[in-house]
């Protein structure tokens, strides 16, 4: 058996590596969506590689979150920095889920529309960015320093909503997701 701290190191390396890879691919796709660079081959490769890497990172994310919580000093969220890590990783998870679901539903036709391709690449880049910020916060927590120290991010401050507000947002979000998914399915049916 290995300790949860060691398991956390393994899973975070998988997550960060995958999201970093996805980030590079979405950056190339974003550049192409603005017409600054065009290559059919690069487009094809970064499309598949980016989404695959994002999907792989997403699979490893829950393991990283749970092993991270259990390996913290009190095995719970006992520090503002850990709470912020939780928020950042879940935001990245939401963005990554949306990117993958859109790609799955719309398929290659996603890239035929400029606004859609730009939203897709922006969301992919944001997912990678939030996950890298999560990793940076982890470095700050365990070693007291991180690569993003120059940004002076307020890791010690947390924005915590009342429980009832979170429940309302959560329920409203679930309803909105259902509506958005139905609309997307309609769109994909029309496109096909």
């Amino acid at each position: 058996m290995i300790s949860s701290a060691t398991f956390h190191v393994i899973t975070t390396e998988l997550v960060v590596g995958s999201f970093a890879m996805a980030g590079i691919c979405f950056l190339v796709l974003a550049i192409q969506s603005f017409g600054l660079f065009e290559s059919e081959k690069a487009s094809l490769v970064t499309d598949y590689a980016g989404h695959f890497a994002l999907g792989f990172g997403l699979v490893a994310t829950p393991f990283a979150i749970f092993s991270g919580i259990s390996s913290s000093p009190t095995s719970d969220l006992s520090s503002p920095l850990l709470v912020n890590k939780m928020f950042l990783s879940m935001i990245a998870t939401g963005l990554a889920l949306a990117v993958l679901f859109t790609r799955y539903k719309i398929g290659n036709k996603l890239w035929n529309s400029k606004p859609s391709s730009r939203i897709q690449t922006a969301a992919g880049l944001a997912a990678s960015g939030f996950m890298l910020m999560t990793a940076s916060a982890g470095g700050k927590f365990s070693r007291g320093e991180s690569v993003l120290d120059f940004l002076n991010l307020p890791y010690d401050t947390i924005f915590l909503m009342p429980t009832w507000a979170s429940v309302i947002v959560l329920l409203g979000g679930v309803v909105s997701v259902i509506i958005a998914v139905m609309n997307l399915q309609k769109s994909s049916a029309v496109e096909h």
Partner: protein
Amino acid sequence: MNRISIVLSLVILLAFTSFGGANPGGVGDGDFDMQCGGACHGDASQNQTSPALLELSLDGDAYLGLPVSITASVSGIQFSSSDAIGLFLLTDVTGHSDLPEDSGWKVISDVNGGDNNYVEIEGSSFNEAYTISWTVKPTVLESTTFYLSIHHGGQNTPYFAISSGLNIDVLPVPDNLPRLSSEYSPIISRDLGQQTTIPVSTSDVDELAIEWRLIDRPSSSINATLIDNNSWEFELPPALQPSIIEWRAVMNGDGPTQITPWFRIAAQEPALEVNQLQVYLQSFAFCIIFLTLVLTLQSRYLNDQEDLPKEIDQTNLLPKQEDSLDSTPPLPEGGLPNGWTMEQWKWYGREYLEDLK
């Protein structure tokens, strides 16, 4: 050309990276084997031998179940700049099962106010020697050999060294020896601003005095209050900022007077008290918000383009017309006119038929 420029870019990026295998920020205190499982220094095979002189010494005798201090002296480190020094208290040099716990010793406190066998201290090119100590407690009546190991950096190189062994014989507790009870474990941390009452459990002690001090400050002496048979307590003043207080007990009884090692208690920011359910709910709420945001935007822009297929259908008519123009006209009765090829008929046959009409 593109491939060459990509390879060149990668080479330039790699050239800007540091080739050092050290981990300049350290990994934080913890219970680690000799090489931290490869975590303290990225790759143990890159380690150079440190010129540091390492020495371990035992402060007093080690009695079964009683705390005792092991002091580590480090000197002769050559730094290129300020850096962290990682120090390990080990009981083996094989790299596994080498924690004090593996040999029946419990680490009660370390120099940083924790209870770890690996500690990191700030190093400096201006300092020549460092002295730190661990308070440990033997739980088995056996001899144990302790080692001090060091990890540090310098000139982009990870350095490693290990001391010669310090053999410690654990002695049985003599009769009537004034001592802390074998189950006693001191408090090692407290919150800022908290007046702290420290309980002390003893055996064969008639009078208990406490000396306490801030690090590198003169000590003060207070008498502990007897609460119950062999149970004492004393109070430490609250700390207004993160700091470490050292204290030790002077125990008088029928046997010879005994002084415990210095115990350390660290004052730190109080742990965050937050409703875990509230945090998890908000995390999922954030996840859903961003999921909804992207899906809604995508569905909106894709729905805006629902008319596009119709336009495409209309434009598709044009190629069909072109196809019909390009298609080969029907051959006249009797087949191809004399001297015509099929290719010519395809392009000019329509005009020929028009002329016939």
